[in-house]
């Protein structure tokens, strides 16, 4: 089994980049065309079904994209296996935790906000 894949990571990095670009453009368009953001309007937007889904997708793409980036940096600069593997594991755990945290946040407000 190959521990690190070549093309798969490269494609994933680009696909997540595209997802992030599209969502950022969507967000920017909403901000620029709508009225200025208040707590009420932001809360309503973020807790609507597609708002919540898009936020979760955004963070998922962000975490995956970041994972590949960090992994590349580690592969380039950090060669000692004793350092490399724990570091990669740590980053993976942190990114996963951040993603879970975002899901929990959205779930809490989704239920609470209706």
């Amino acid at each position, binding site marked *: 089994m190959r521990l690190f894949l070549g093309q798969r990571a490269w494609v994933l990095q680009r696909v997540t980049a595209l997802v992030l670009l599209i969502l950022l453009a969507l967000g920017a368009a909403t901000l620029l065309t709508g009225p200025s953001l208040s*707590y009420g309007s932001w*809360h309503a937007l*973020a807790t609507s079904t597609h708002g919540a889904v898009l936020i979760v997708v955004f963070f998922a793409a962000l*975490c995956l994209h970041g994972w590949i*980036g960090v992994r590349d*940096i580690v592969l380039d600069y950090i060669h000692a296996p004793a350092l490399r593997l724990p570091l990669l594991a740590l980053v993976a755990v942190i990114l996963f935790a951040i993603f879970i*945290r975002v899901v929990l*946040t959205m779930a809490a407000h989704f239920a609470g906000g209706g």
Partner: protein
Amino acid sequence: MRARSAGAPKFLNLSQIRFPIGAIASIGHRLSGVLLMVSLPLLALALDRSLRSEPEFAALRDLVSAPWRALLLVILVWAAAHHLFAGVRHLLADIGVGSRLAQARTSAWAVIVAAGIIALAAALRWLS
């Protein structure tokens, strides 16, 4: 492989190497990526806060009132802008758009300058 030069010196003093503009844009891409990664937990936190209550949402808007936080924010704005522009440049180059040397040099300059201008605008707005 064992080369006869095992233990030989290597010249790799980066300060004595003249980097082309594309390399500088690329180092910026990496650096900005690291900055954005480091601030990712803060972004997740900000999302949570912004949804909690009216005052916490307002507090986020007032983040820039402290100059050191405003400065951090300006740096992050630079990082986001540079990473985004450099990323789009790479995505286009991947499919063969602007991957010729002359165009790639111009677009590397454009990325660096555009990100700089955006950071400057943010600084003028929040730091003065």
